[in-house]
């Protein structure tokens, strides 16, 4: 079988079939298609303004490694006028995060972008290893997820960043759409496809890789020889997301456009007027966005610090009961 030639008639041998379009492209034409699409997403979404400080949420994984590389390249090529900084969160998971942080440090050297690492320990007084000792391995991912969301906002505020940039790709967003449908979470379903979101603090978040397929991110990293970290977290993986992901990948095998189709479905969904959505207020303790008087992170922390680690995991009525019981035990007269 003769080699397939590049669809753009450049005469080169094609190296990949694009999942989005089915086009066969050579290495160079793929690079330019990939970079141009991210550039178009940035321009059409009006993601940045000249002079802004953009904090790239960097985990050392494939998505944020490619994001940092491409953003640096496009910023230079198209004169966005952005100041870039890498922001990494150290959850304090030995054997996992310490290794991936080495990758982020390498990104700092390779791309010449300054790096700020913030730890859960310094932000919350608790590392994930310490939390797992208290809570065990069943609900630890809840703590980690809730803390990470705020940690990025807190880190960005500390850096005085104007915008936080995350590496969420088209597959991630399609997965989230599916999960929100399965859970009937209308409020999240409505906002999960937005390219720029409010974040939990006051700093907006955006996703320049929103329309980029995971396959192309991995191929781009491979052909550009970008070094990234790819080990699963040592604590329990997110089982629910795992199922949504496997389902999505099965669909993609049959019809690669399924990912973009689900993403568009999510974007097109509108909530009927008059449907009551949870009000987004502000946490009375930390001022971050919350639908309850006390945000989830503060509730979880309260539980950890009071020796009631399950507090934040329970429904709010049950949590009150737990606090009452604890109070009674503490204040009970010593006969």
């Amino acid at each position, binding site marked *: *079988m003769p080699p397939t030639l590049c669809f753009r008639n450049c005469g080169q041998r094609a190296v*990949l*079939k694009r999942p989005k379009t089915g086009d066969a492209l050579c290495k160079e034409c793929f690079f330019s298609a990939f970079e141009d699409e991210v550039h178009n997403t940035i321009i059409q979404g009006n993601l940045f303004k000249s002079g802004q400080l953009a904090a790239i949420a960097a985990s050392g994984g494939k*998505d944020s490694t490619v994001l940092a590389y491409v953003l640096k390249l496009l910023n230079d090529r198209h004169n966005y006028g952005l100041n870039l900084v890498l922001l990494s969160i150290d959850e304090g998971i030995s054997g996992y995060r310490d290794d991936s942080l080495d990758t982020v440090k390498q990104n700092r050297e390779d791309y010449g972008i300054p790096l700020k690492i913030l730890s859960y320990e310094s932000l919350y007084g608790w590392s994930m290893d310490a939390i797992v000792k208290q809570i065990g391995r069943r609900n630890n991912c809840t703590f980690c997820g809730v803390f990470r969301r705020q940690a990025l906002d807190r880190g960005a505020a500390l850096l005085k960043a104007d915008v936080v940039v995350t590496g969420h790709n088209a597959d991630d967003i399609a997965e989230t759409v599916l999960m929100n449908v399965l859970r009937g979470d209308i409020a999240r379903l409505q906002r999960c496809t937005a390219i720029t979101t409010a974040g939990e603090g006051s700093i907006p978040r955006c996703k320049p890789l929103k329309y980029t397929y995971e396959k192309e991110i*991995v*191929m781009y990293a*491979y052909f550009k020889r970008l070094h990234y970290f*790819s*080990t699963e977290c040592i604590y329990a993986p997110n089982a629910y997301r795992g199922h949504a992901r496997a389902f999505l990948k099965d669909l993609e095998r049959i019809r690669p456009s399924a990912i973009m189709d689900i993403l568009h479905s999510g974007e097109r969904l509108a909530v009927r007027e008059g449907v009551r959505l949870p009000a987004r207020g502000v946490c009375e303790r930390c001022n971050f966005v919350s639908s309850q008087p006390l945000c989830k992170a503060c509730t979880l922390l309260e539980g950890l610090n009071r020796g009631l680690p399950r507090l934040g995991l329970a429904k709010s009525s049950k949590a009150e009961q737990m606090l009452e019981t604890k109070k009674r035990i503490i204040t009970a007269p010593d006969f």
Partner: protein
Amino acid sequence: MSTSEGLLRITLEFRGGAELLFDNVKKHNVKLPLIDKTWTLRNLLLWIKENLLKERPELFVQGDSVRPGILVLVNEADWELLGGNDYVLKEGDTVLFISTLHGG
């Protein structure tokens, strides 16, 4: 038959976390016996499952193909351009498997 004429020599590489299923070894030089059989990627996958995979085969193979989410490149080109499972392996080919299912 164990003479070198009866063997197909190829290189297998595993990356992106796929190597974790192979004792963390990223590169394997293998010799496949050429007894009344052409080696397609489909056959190769069965061979890998029986001879190389160290754990959790369901994370690598699904049905008679590679698990969706694992990319396959033959000599640096996407297997989707080469006929996928029906591609016939040649002496000296390098087959690379990259998992996209790890980390983020």
